[in-house]
């Protein structure tokens, strides 16, 4: 038991922080004028919180793997926007069925990811640069495909309406995220691929000497992240009833913040999915309580900045031990 606690100390710590923030949020929350209970704790609010957090959290699952390999993917926000546009175009303009539209949008995301992965693996240019370039380029692509216009879905026919109704439901979104989180966690923990991901980030030189399939691992992590960004784009389109080419601007930073808050080291090798889920919840709760208290958007950003720095400082303390 003690051994187990020690092994998972990082996680226990993150959980403690999560508990603390949750309690603080409950205490600080404005009260319901009828019952007097905190608004924050109402089921409707909590599920709403989860739903709003879902897209970023989902991409963070893939980003965790990318960062574990010692890489980074700055293009996820643009990919999210592109997928949202593709889904909306397919439904509203091309009048495709829901399944085809969704599958296409997710596939496009996956292709962007594979492209990133291929460039990282083959060109040996730092992932930061590669994905910075694709962040810029993909955003341009998204805007040009829809001529810089938002594509409404509510008035775009049956398939589109049905799509919006299903894919914006809270239980659906939350269930989807939970399922994916479990899947990616199992992938990381229980498969050869997962071991290679960590090994590559822990010591890239030794990974070469040990004959690991480095290129394939890189293709896979960036590809998976692209798929998840595509899925997040579809969810965003459903939740907002539109395909907006500016969806997901700066989302990559939120995603990275979530991963880092979850204790995954940007230097690679250390961290995991459980931490990322906790990180997403922390970020979600913060955004929610600040919203409930009517803190204005700009102050929210400044607070968020402080919290990220704090989280990383705590994490470095851990690493130094």
């Amino acid at each position, binding site marked *: 038991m003690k051994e187990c606690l020690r092994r998972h100390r990082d996680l226990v710590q993150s959980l403690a922080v999560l508990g603390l923030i949750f309690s603080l949020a409950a205490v600080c929350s404005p009260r319901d004028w009828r019952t007097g209970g905190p608004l924050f704790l109402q089921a409707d609010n909590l599920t709403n919180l989860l739903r709003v957090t879902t897209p970023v959290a989902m991409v963070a699952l893939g980003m965790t793997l990318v960062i574990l390999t010692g890489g980074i993917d700055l293009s996820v926000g643009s990919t999210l926007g592109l997928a949202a546009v593709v889904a909306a175009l397919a439904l509203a303009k091309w009048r495709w069925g829901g399944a085809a539209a969704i599958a296409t949008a997710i596939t496009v995301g996956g292709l962007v990811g594979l492209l990133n992965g291929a460039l990282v693996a083959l060109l040996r240019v730092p992932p930061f640069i590669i994905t910075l370039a694709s962040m810029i380029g993909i955003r341009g692509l998204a805007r040009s495909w829809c001529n810089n216009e938002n594509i409404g879905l509510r008035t775009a026919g049956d398939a589109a309406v049905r799509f919006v109704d299903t894919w914006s439901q809270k239980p659906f979104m939350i269930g989807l995220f939970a399922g994916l989180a479990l899947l990616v966690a199992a992938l990381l923990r229980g498969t*050869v691929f997962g071991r290679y991901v960590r*090994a590559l980030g822990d010591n890239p030189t*030794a990974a*070469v*000497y040990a*004959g690991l399939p480095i290129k394939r691992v890189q293709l896979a992590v960036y590809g998976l992240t692209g798929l998840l960004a595509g899925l997040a784009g579809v969810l965003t389109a459903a939740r907002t009833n539109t395909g907006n080419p500016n969806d997901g601007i700066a989302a990559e930073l939120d995603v990275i913040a979530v991963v880092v808050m979850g204790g995954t080291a940007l230097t690679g*090798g250390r961290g995991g999915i459980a931490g990322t889920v906790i990180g997403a919840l922390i970020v979600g709760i913060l955004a929610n309580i600040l919203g409930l208290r009517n803190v204005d958007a700009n102050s929210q950003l400044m607070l968020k900045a402080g919290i990220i720095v704090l989280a990383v400082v705590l994490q470095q303390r851990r690493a130094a031990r």
Partner: protein
Amino acid sequence: MTAPTAPSPPPLLRARNLLKQYDGVRALRGVDIEIRAGEVHALLGENGAGKSTLGKILAGAVPATAGTLEVDGREIRVRHPGDAQRQGIAMIFQELDLFPNLTVAENIALRNPALAEGFRVRRDRLHAFCRPFLERVGLPVDSATRLGDLHLGHQQLVAIARALSRSARLIVFDEATSALTEELVANLFRVIRDLRAAGVACIYVSHKMDEIFRICDRITVLRDGGFVATVDAAATNPDELVRLMIGHEVNTGQRARSHATETAVLEVANLTTTLVRDVSFKLHRGEVLGLAGLVGSGRGEIGRALFGLAPVLGGRLHKGGREVRPRTPRAAMAAGFGLVPRDRRREGLMMGMRVRDNANLAIMGRLSVAGVLRPGREAAAADRMATATRLKAGSPHTAVRTLSGGNQQKTLLGRWLQREPDVLFLDDPTRGVDVGAKEDIYQLIAEQAARGAGIMLVSSELPELLRCCDRILVLNQGRVAGLVDARTATAESLLRQATASGAPGEGSL
């Protein structure tokens, strides 16, 4: 009134009751040690006995959990490396703490106040400052070379030069010669004797008995983190020390039975890379072929070329009769090659990962079904490896980072032994391994040979080659200088061939 005989001056350094508790491990349990000015004091003990931990505490790299340190009879506090530096304590770490992307000179002069002017580094003075120290340790490279481009042995010399440049009164050498050849060690010993004459004290951590008896005045033995004894070198012998270290005797010096056959498993013809030229030899099934030569002679390069890590410019490789030309380690592994690299920290281990995952990294395919790992198989494989190598680790789940140097080496070796390749290239596999564990590793090498593998063994210790190998290929400046039968060769003859300049010794087989 006659003056009373002057009380003997306090020792340079006295440690009392040092205790170090890591997470789950007690690395030191109350150690006392006394270092006198101008002595070379050996620290001896099995892998994991706590030698490095003791050194690190003196150098301020880790804090002691309890205990006191005195310098010149005054109690001091050493909380970080800066404190130790002010007290004149320098250390050459077993796992070197150099910066691979800086030059040799920058590594040596880093944080040396003599070279700073405000925030400005006097680059003009940098090289002039470093040159004398590089000359003293006998490092034959330009001080503007990037550190990462040097061999491990030469990197060790840089670390030593840095310690010298800090004009320390006490220098801790933690296995600082583990990757040095005989010649460089002899040179280093000259430097240490000069230091001793100048009143500088040295703590000398090593597993090499002959070195200890050549250079040390007194010897302190540790076992399982506890103090066993401090003895005068003149009044003891290797057998007694081994007994103190381990508690029983170790049978050393026996040649393993040869398993060499007549079938060639690997034929190398005219192999040429940027570092070696026209190297040709045959490796037989069950044979242990030694590779001898100085640092830079191309010993390790042959392994890197076979393993797809160094571009092959010319020549042919035939393995089991078929021509092969691996371009990546992955392809080489598929073709049946294995390589235990020399620099375990940079090229070998994933320091943050568990012992188990490190040991199993090269056989993941066998431990999984359709890419999904079977925890039972993982645990069984890791246990088998730990038993075979007599690995000392808290549990298979501890991070490799927290293992002692020798046990890290065993983990890396275990990774490749488990894979059972047809051709196994071992680049200094006993570096930093204790006397008893060395015997274990020789045994493991013999077992691999018995199973029919062809083994190539690089070692900076000639006796090790003479003992384990069937034949020894001597390299000199990237060319084959001779191929000798290990049963008849002597250390002197090998050394002569390895250092002879001019034309390679034709016909000196």
